[in-house]
């Protein structure tokens, strides 16, 4: 057996020599087409050179190449590179920058937005991109049957926007009311080629158009990249759109790279190993327990572990204060979903503040996050350049204060079991649910159980399957408290999270989809969200958001937990890389990234 293994390895090692070498550098790309009439100069640190490829590991392959139908990151990671919007969110400055629209302005009425399109922009088949294509894309976005999720951003109080094209290079959008998010919402509509997709749209086949088995040549794109090859379960290769309108300051057409490869590596440990062996150039998701290894091996691996600071994603828990909205046996409309005894505790801001005061977040950071986390008190984490404010109301760890609050409720431990009883003699405690597959959340819940025991509140930890958790929190409300997290959208504007903060919101976790606000504080938040969504004035919006955060934190509706620092490894042989905490973290500016000449590495 031993000798067999040895000879097998030798045999395959020979094959390895035959096929393990790197692709030889072919002749550099020569731009065959003249530059468009109005090209777009893209900001970059240095002038690159043509050639090479970037390999990125993804946990699963794309499900569709149809940007309208793509709903999960495994697909949008690709479609966002292949299809553009009117404007583009710059991860570096965290602002909307011109893209297909070279300029835009809003009329004094605050409702009429005029976008001026770039002349000479073309799809990957050379067909010009005009206002017709923009109108077509909006028609698809508003279609009742196709119903892409982007539709939600384009409807205000049930009313659609009015989108017109007075000439081939002008698009006018009239909104039914003032809206602060017009530019970013309109840019979420990806521009799809009318000349290719109108026929499938009319025959009702739009949904399955541009699916993963479509021949790559038939997928006509508007962005910097188009599909070159798709191998199910293995990889997708994008290559440059030869007609892309982006150029560098010396008038070289972008992108510089010949290929952008998305390699499917479902197992995270395997992705780490692939990075170590050099097969992968960047990983978008590293476990914090591996940060140390990556830091220690930067030199020999010729890569840098970029510390991007706190993530945009949050962790928190909340108490179930939902009421029954549909009568069922034993429960009538308006009853609390949880046991009325517990509801009385959960509904009491003093209890919620005491809980927040009892959670020792600093103790969690070294043991759960390996030191790579910060305390966080808002959905706008410190990573958020525009919306973060350091001085929001917070109830950070203070055991004495927490105990004082519990005592002020006249809750005392009468039976000596270490846990307090409320005034009617019930032992105070709750079940804390979280999804069992997330190790970090389970560890945080463990810490919370120990912390709350110190103020005499008994916590039972209930890790459950993710789908069960979602059903619990959305449909049957069979929970007392849930520990979860929220990811941030792009752009990370709090108006994107309306559903979480509005009392009528479907993601207003602690008391969802209220018919009218139950508390004066929630009524105030609703009014503030109106301002946030409709006022174009950034300072007024910031003030409104600050007040929302202060109310939520003062009420203790959400008990905030630390946020992880993001660190991502990236090979040093690439120039112009600029990793960012905002998705797509490694490749948001990939059209400007190039392979440095060998020997030029630091």
């Amino acid at each position, binding site marked *: 057996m031993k000798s067999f293994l040895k000879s097998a390895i030798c045999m395959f090692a020979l094959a*390895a020599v035959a096929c393990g070498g*790197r692709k030889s550098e072919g002749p550099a790309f020569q731009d065959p087409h003249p530059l468009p009439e109005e090209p777009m100069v893209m900001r970059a640190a240095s002038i690159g050179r043509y050639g090479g490829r970037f390999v990125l590991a993804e946990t699963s392959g794309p499900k569709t190449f149809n940007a309208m139908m793509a*709903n999960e990151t495994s697909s949008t990671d690709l479609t966002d590179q292949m299809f553009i919007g009117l404007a583009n969110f710059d991860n570096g400055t965290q602002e909307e920058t011109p893209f297909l629209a070279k300029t835009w302005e809003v009329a004094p009425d605050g409702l009429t937005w005029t976008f001026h399109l770039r002349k000479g922009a073309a799809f990957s088949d050379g067909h010009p991109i005009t206002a017709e294509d923009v109108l077509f894309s909006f028609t698809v976005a508003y279609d009742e049957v196709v119903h892409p999720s982007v539709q939600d951003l384009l409807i205000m109080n049930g009313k659609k926007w009015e989108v017109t094209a007075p000439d081939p290079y002008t698009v006018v959008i009239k909104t039914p009311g003032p809206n602060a998010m017009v530019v970013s919402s309109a840019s979420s509509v990806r521009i799809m080629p009318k000349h290719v997709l109108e026929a499938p749209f009319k025959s009702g086949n739009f949904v399955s158009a541009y699916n993963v088995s479509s021949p790559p040549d038939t997928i006509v794109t508007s962005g910097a990249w188009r599909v070159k090859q798709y*191998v199910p379960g293995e990889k997708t290769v994008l290559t440059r759109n030869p007609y892309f309108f982006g150029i560098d300051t010396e008038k070289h057409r972008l992108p510089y790279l010949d290929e952008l490869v998305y390699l*499917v590596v479902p*197992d995270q*440990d395997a992705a780490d190993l692939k990075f170590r062996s050099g*097969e992968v150039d960047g990983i978008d998701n590293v476990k914090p327990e591996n940060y140390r290894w990556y830091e220690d091996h930067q030199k020999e691996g010729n890569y840098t572990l970029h510390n991007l600071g706190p993530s945009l994603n949050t962790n928190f828990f909340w108490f179930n204060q939902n009421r029954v909205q549909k009568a069922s046996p034993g429960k009538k409309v308006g009853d609390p979903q949880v046991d009325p005894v517990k509801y009385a505790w959960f509904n009491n801001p003093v209890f919620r503040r005491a809980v927040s005061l009892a959670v020792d977040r600093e103790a969690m950071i070294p043991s759960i996050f390996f030191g790579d986390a910060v305390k966080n008190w808002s959905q706008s984490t410190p990573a958020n350049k525009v919306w973060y404010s350091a001085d929001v109301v917070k109830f950070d760890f203070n055991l004495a204060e927490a105990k004082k609050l519990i005592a002020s409720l006249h809750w005392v431990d009468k039976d000596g079991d270490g846990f307090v009883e409320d005034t009617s003699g019930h032992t105070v405690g709750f079940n804390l649910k979280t999804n069992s597959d997330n190790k970090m959340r389970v560890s945080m819940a463990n810490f919370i159980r120990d912390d709350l025991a110190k103020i005499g509140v008994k916590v039972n930890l209930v890790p459950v399957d993710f789908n069960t958790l*979602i059903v619990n929190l959305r449909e049957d409300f069979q929970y007392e408290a849930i520990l979860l997290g929220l990811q941030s959208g792009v752009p990370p504007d709090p108006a994107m999270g309306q559903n979480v903060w509005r009392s009528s919101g479907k993601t207003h976790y602690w008391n969802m989809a209220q018919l009218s606000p139950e508390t004066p504080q929630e009524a105030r938040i609703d009014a503030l969200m109106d301002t946030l969504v409709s006022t174009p004035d950034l300072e007024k919006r910031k003030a409104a958001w600050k007040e929302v955060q202060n109310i939520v934190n003062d009420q203790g509706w959400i008990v905030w937990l630390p946020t992880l620092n993001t660190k991502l490894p990236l090979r040093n042989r690439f120039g112009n890389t600029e990793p960012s905490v905002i998705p797509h973290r490694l490749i948001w500016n990939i059209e400007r990234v190039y392979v440095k000449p060998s020997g030029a590495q630091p």
Partner: protein
Amino acid sequence: MRTYIAKRFLQVIPLLFGISFLTFLLLQLAPGDFLNQMAENPAISPATIDAMRRRFGLDQPWYFQYWLYLQNVILHFDFGESFSRHQPVFTVMREGLSNTLILAGAAAVVTWGLAIPLGVWAAVRQYSWIDKGLSLVAFVWLSIPEILSGLLLLMLAARTGWFPVGGMRSIDYDDLNGFGKFADVSWHLALPALVVGLVPLASRMRQMRGNLLDVLRLDFVTTARAKGLDEGIVIYKHAVRNALNPMITLFGYTLGALVSGSFIAEIIFSWPGLGRLTLDAILTQDQYLVMGSVLMASVVLILGNLIADLLLAIADPRISYD
């Protein structure tokens, strides 16, 4: 024989019917549906989720959904569409199935190519150091979980560079010539095939050893030896051939298990097979894709058993199905 095969095929119909019903029922009992994950995205409204639920037919009661599914399968041989990919289930599964069969086939070669010679060797040298050593190694391997042996081999690959770290093809695969392509896939195949193939090795090897020992005790072997036949001919020409009979049945039965046996290795080694596809489908509750892969695995299992029975009839003239 023909009637026997026909009968067996007829028996398959109610079986598949039952399997599809149970799978569908279990999928309905599992909490949530395909749209749950999306419902957690604050940017997607309940109206959108409802519209999608209507488009996928998930707003209908489950028995109605099942009825529609059956109708489409029976009348149009249409196994539905994957929710996430907007593609027919069979299109999605085709590629995965062939990759899984490649891995399973290579694993079978590892298992049987090692089990039979080693089993014979151990039986011939019963109770020797070789016999004991072989059992020890085989059982140690049997007791290491696939997930651990897989990760260990993956680490070996990363450390030494002798093997690729998972995947099925190199990134430059398309630039290779015919032989290079074959060598490239084999090179990627080596470790996962070893992981999958070595698990059943211990039991197959012990079975071969036991069978041969049983045969060696039979009268005809004694007769052959008494005739003064060469010991080599006694063992390899007469005894081993008889001892192989039960192994043939076993081989047929393991054919069916092959497809489901490699799921864990597929995930660790990023092998683009049916296992990963099915796991993804189950986790996201892509229900018709799950149904499709369960039915596919069942058909392979049933065919495997049928082949086992037929092989036995061919190998052993004493058995006949008429």
